[in-house]
C-alpha cells in the first residue's frame, strides 16, 4: 500500500495540541475559571484550525491511500512504531471529533455542570480530544490500543464526577464494560501479531498478511476483537452500559460519547477487524448482521419503554448503531459507505439531541416525558430545534440521518459474495420496519414534550395557557435558546442539512478508501 508522507506534521500537531493546552492550564490557578475556559476554548479552536488545514492539504484525488504518514520508531523491542496516517475513512471522523470538541467547549462556557471546577472538567475534555483524534489516525495496533484506552479515564471521571444521581454506578459500569472488551481485544491483537509472523503491528502490514492465517484461528482472533469493539459500539447484548452512561453523564459527556466514542467501535471493525481477518469476517458477518437488526428493533422497543427523555435518546443510539453495524455486516463497499455515513450522521444528530436534552434539563430540572409538555409554546425555538433533530433522527430524506439508514437497508439486499442472501434480505425487511419504530418513538416523544399546553408546574401560575410568552412569569429558568447554545448548535444543524441535501460531499471521500479497504475480499 503506497503511503504519502507530505507535510505529515499536521496529524501529530492536530492530535497533541490539546495536551499543550492541558499543560498550560495546569499552571493556571483553579479559581480563575474564565482563564481556563478561554485557554481550553482557544486550544480547541486551534486544534480545529489544524484540522481544517488538514482538510485543505488532504489529497482527495487519492483518498484511498494513507496520507500525512508519519512512521517513527516507538517501541522497537516489540516491533511497534508510531505510525499514523489519514485516509478517506478516517478523515470524516477525525475532523468530526475536533468540531464536536470545539462546540462542546463553547457550550461549556456557561454550562459547567455541578460540582463546577471547570479546570478539571476542561482538562479532561482536552485529553479526551487527543485520545479520540489519535484513535482515528493510528495505523499501528499498539498505538491504536493506547489511544483507544486513553479516552476511558476522562470519560469515566466526566460521568462519575459531573454526572447525575446514579453517576458512580454508571461510570464504573461504563469503565468495566469497556475495559473488559479492550482487554480481550488486546489479547486478540497480540495473537494476530504472532500469527502473522511477529513482524509488525502496522495495520497495512497486517492487512497484507492477515488473510494467510488459518481460518479457525482467524475466527478466534476475530472473536476477541469483536467483543472489544462490540462493547464500544455498543451492540446488543453488550449495550446495557450505554443507557446508564448516557443518562448519568453531563450534557457534554453525552454529546461526546454519542458523537465520537461510540464510533470508535464501528471504526475498529471497519479499519482493523474486517480487513485484517477477511475469512473470519465472512464467518461472523451473518451473526453481526443478526445482532445488528436485533439491536435495531430492541433499541426501538427500549425507547418506547422509556419515561426519561435522555434515556430514550440513549436507547435510540443502540438502534441507530444497529443500522451502522448492519451496513458493515454486508461486507460490501456500499454497506461500508452507508455505515461510515451513518456514523457521522448519528454523531451530528444524536449529539445535537443530547445538547437539546441537556438544555431542557437545565430549564425544567427534569427530563420526565410525563411532566414536560408544551415546550413549543414555552420555549419555541428549542422546541423547533428538537423537532428538527427528531425528524433528522428518524431518517427523513433531505437530512443527514437518511443517508446512513436507507443505503444500509439497501446494502442488506445484496451482501458480499458467500454471505447468505435470504438471511440478509430478511434483515433488510426487519431493518425497514425498524425505521417505522424510529418514527414511532421519536414522534411520540416530540408530541408529548413539545406539543400541548405547558404543564402548570412550569408556567409559574395555574392556568394552562401561560399567556403566550410562557417564560418570564414566575419561572426564570425557563428561557429560550441562549447565545452560547446558538453558537454551539448552529454548525451541527447546518451540517445536518448540508450532508442531507448533498451527501456526495462525504461519499466522495469515503468511497475510494472503502473500496481499497475491502480489496482483501477481491472486491
Amino acid at each position, binding site marked *: 500500500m503506497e503511503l504519502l508522507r507530505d507535510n505529515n506534521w499536521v496529524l501529530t500537531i492536530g492530535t497533541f495540541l490539546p495536551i499543550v493546552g492541558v499543560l498550560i492550564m495546569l499552571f493556571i490557578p*483553579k479559581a480563575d475559571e474564565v482563564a481556563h475556559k478561554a485557554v481550553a476554548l482557544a486550544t480547541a479552536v486551534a486544534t480545529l484550525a489544524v484540522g481544517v488545514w488538514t482538510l485543505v492539504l488532504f489529497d482527495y484525488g487519492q483518498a484511498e491511500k494513507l496520507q500525512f504518514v508519519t512512521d517513527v*520508531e*516507538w*517501541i*522497537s*523491542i*516489540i516491533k511497534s512504531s508510531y505510525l499514523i496516517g489519514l485516509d478517506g475513512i478516517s478523515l470524516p471522523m477525525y475532523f468530526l471529533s475536533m468540531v464536536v470538541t470545539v462546540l462542546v467547549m463553547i457550550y461549556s462556557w456557561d454550562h459547567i455542570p455541578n460540582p463546577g471546577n471547570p479546570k*478539571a472538567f476542561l482538562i479532561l475534555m482536552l485529553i479526551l480530544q487527543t485520545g479520540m483524534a489519535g484513535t482515528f489516525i493510528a495505523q499501528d495496533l*499498539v498505538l491504536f*490500543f*493506547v*489511544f483507544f*484506552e*486513553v479516552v*476511558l*479515564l476522562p470519560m*469515566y*471521571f466526566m460521568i*462519575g*464526577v459531573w454526572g447525575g444521581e446514579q*453517576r*458512580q454506578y454508571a*461510570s*464504573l459500569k461504563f*469503565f*468495566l464494560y469497556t*475495559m*473488559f472488551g479492550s*482487554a*480481550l481485544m*488486546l*489479547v486478540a491483537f*497480540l*495473537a494476530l*501479531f*504472532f*500469527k502473522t509472523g*511477529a513482524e509488525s503491528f502496522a495495520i497495512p502490514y497486517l492487512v497484507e498478511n492477515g488473510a494467510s492465517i488459518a481460518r479457525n484461528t482467524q475466527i478466534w482472533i476475530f472473536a476477541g476483537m469483536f467483543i472489544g469493539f462490540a462493547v464500544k459500539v455498543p451492540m446488543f447484548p453488550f449495550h446495557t452500559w450505554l443507557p446508564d452512561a448516557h443518562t448519568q453523564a453531563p450534557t457534554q459527556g453525552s454529546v461526546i460519547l454519542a458523537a465520537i466514542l461510540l464510533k470508535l467501535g464501528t471504526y475498529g471493525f471497519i479499519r482493523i477487524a474486517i480487513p485484517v481477518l477477511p475469512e473470519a469476517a465472512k464467518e461472523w458477518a451473518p451473526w453481526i448482521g443478526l445482532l445488528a437488526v436485533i439491536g435495531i428493533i430492541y433499541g426501538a422497543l427500549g425507547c418506547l419503554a422509556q419515561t426519561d427523555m435522555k434515556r430514550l435518546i440513549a436507547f435510540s443510539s443502540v438502534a441507530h448503531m444497529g443500522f451502522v453495524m448492519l451496513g458493515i455486516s454486508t461486507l460490501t463497499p456500499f454497506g461500508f459507505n452507508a455505515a461510515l455515513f451513518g456514523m457521522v450522521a448519528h454523531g451530528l444528530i444524536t449529539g445535537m439531541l443530547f445538547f437539546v436534552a441537556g438544555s431542557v434539563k437545565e430549564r425544567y430540572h427534569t427530563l420526565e416525558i410525563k411532566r414536560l409538555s408544551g415546550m413549543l409554546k414555552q420555549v419555541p425555538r428549542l422546541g423547533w430545534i428538537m423537532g428538527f433533530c427528531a425528524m433528522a433522527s428518524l431518517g427523513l430524506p433531505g437530512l443527514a440521518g437518511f443517508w446512513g439508514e436507507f443505503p444500509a437497508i439497501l446494502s442488506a439486499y445484496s451482501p458480499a459474495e458467500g454471505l447468505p442472501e435470504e438471511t440478509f434480505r430478511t434483515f433488510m425487511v426487519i431493518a425497514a420496519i425498524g425505521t417505522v419504530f424510529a418514527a414511532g418513538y421519536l414522534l411520540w416523544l416530540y408530541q408529548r414534550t413539545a406539543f400541548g399546553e405547558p404543564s402548570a408546574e412550569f408556567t409559574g401560575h395555574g392556568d394552562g395557557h401561560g399567556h403566550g410568552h410562557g417564560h418570564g412569569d414566575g419561572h426564570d429558568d425557563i428561557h429560550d435558546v441562549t447565545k452560547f447554545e446558538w453558537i454551539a448548535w448552529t454548525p451541527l444543524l447546518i451540517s445536518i442539512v448540508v450532508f442531507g441535501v448533498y451527501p456526495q460531499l462525504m461519499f466522495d471521500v469515503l468511497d475510494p478508501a472503502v473500496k481499497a479497504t475491502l480489496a482483501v475480499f477481491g472486491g
Partner: protein
Amino acid sequence: MLSSLLSMVADGDWVSPTIDYHALAPEIVLAAGIVVVLLVDLFTSESNKWLVAPIASFSFLGAFIPVVTLALSDNTMRELFDGRYVVDEFSLVIKGLFILAGYVVVLISTDYLREGDYYQGEYWFLVLTSILGMVMMASSRDLVSIFVALEFLSIPAYMLAAWRKRDLKSNEAGVKYYLLGVFASAIMLYGMSLLYGIANSTLLTDIGETLSGEMTSIRALAVLFVIIGFAFKVSAVPFHTWAPDTYEGAPTPVTAFLSVASKAAGFVALVTVLYVAFPYASDVWQPVMWILSALTMTVGNVLALRQSNIVRMLAYSSISQGGFILMPLAVAGEGAVGQSALRAVVVYLMLYAATNLGVFAIVIAVARKTRSGAISSYGGLFSYAPGLAALMTIFMASLAGIPPLGGWFGKFAAFQAVLSAETNWGYAIAVIGAVNSVVAFGYYGNVLREIWMRPAPDGDTAPVVIQPAIAVALGITALATLVLGTLPGIVSHFGDLASLSRAFGG
C-alpha cells in the same frame, strides 16, 4: 571426618582469587555507607540524628555511579569467583533498580521517621543492609551466595517490619513475617541441600547441566522446594499469607520497601535460578508457575475487592501484580520465549516499582493529615488536594494498566510474552490475565471514586502539607510512570538480557 576435610583443603592447591573491584564497586560503596551510618549514628547527639538520612541517601546515589560506569564499560560480562558472582547487564539493571528504589524509600521515610520518635540510625542501617543484600542477590550465581544474599536482605526486613516496637500490630507483622520467612527459607534450604547432593556442586551452571539429564522424583522435589522459597518472597498464592498482615502492620515506608524492593529481589532470585539452574527442568516448574500465577492474580484480586484499609488493599493488589509478573514465567521454558519472558519480568518490575512507590508516597502524605488508613478517608481528596488526587489517579490507573500510564506496558509485555509461546496454556493464562486486569479496576476504581466522587469524611478540607522529600519522591515516581508509559522504548531494551537466557538460546 574433620581430618578428611582438612586434608581436602590442604592438598587442594588453593590460590586466592583475583578480584575485579570495579565490578564490586556498588557493593563496596553500600558497605562503606553502612559503616558510616553506624559510626555517625553512634557519635552524634539525638539532635543531629537527622544527619543520618542524607548520608544514607548519598550512599545510595554513590552506589548508583559505579552501576552506570559498569553499564557503560565495554566489558559487560564480568565473572568473579569462577562464576559464582557475575556482573552482567541483567544484574546491573536490577542493581540500578534496587538502588534507586532504596533511594526513594529513604525519601519517603525521612519525615515519617522524624515525626514518630523512632531510632533513626538503625533504620537507615537496616535499609542499607537489606538493599546491599539485594544487590548481591542480583549477581549471585551460586546456591551459597544466593542463600546468604537472601538472608542478608531478609533479616533486616524482619526487623524493619517490627520497627514500631511499641505498636502491637507492628510486632505482629514482624513476628509473622519472621516465622514464615524463616520457615520458607528452611524449606528452600532443604531443597538446596538436595540439589547439592544431586549435582555435587553449588554452582548454578553445574546444577543446570546436571538437571539436563532425565528427571527423577528427588530432583523434581528439590526444584520445587527451591522455587517455594522464592515464591514465598514474591508472596505468590498460596505462600502469600504473611503479606497482607505484615504490610498492614509494618510502618508504611517499610511496607513500600517490602512490596517493591524485597518482592523484586524475590523475582530476581527466582529468575536467576530458573534460567541458570533449571533451564532443563522446565517441565517441572512451568506448570507450577502457571498455577501460581493464575492463583496469585485471581485470589489477590478478589480479596483486594473486599478491603477497606488502603494499605491492606495495596497488599493484595501487589500480590495480584506479582501474579502478572509470574505469568510470563509460566511459559518461559518454550525455547525463544524465555527471552521475551525475562524482558517482560524485568520491565514489569521497573514499572511496578515506580508506580507502587509513588502510591505509598501518597498514602504516607495523606495519612499524615487524615491519621487513618481507611479507604473512605480519601473522600474529597480531589476537592482539597487536587494535585495529590491527580497523582494518585495516575498511579492507580498505572497499576490498573490503563494506557498511557506505565503499568500498561508491563501488562502488555507480559501478555506478549505469554502469547508468543502460541501454546494453549499460554492462551489460557492470557485470558485469565485479561479478565483479572479488568477485575482489578474494581478496587483501584474504588479508590478513585472516593477521591473524586465522594465528599470529605468529616467535611475536613484543610489542605495537605507535602514535605519536600515526599515531593521529590512523588516527582520521580510520577515522571517515571508517565514517561515510561508513553515511551516504553526507553526501558524495554534493558530487557533483552542475552547473558542470562543463554540456556534458552536467547
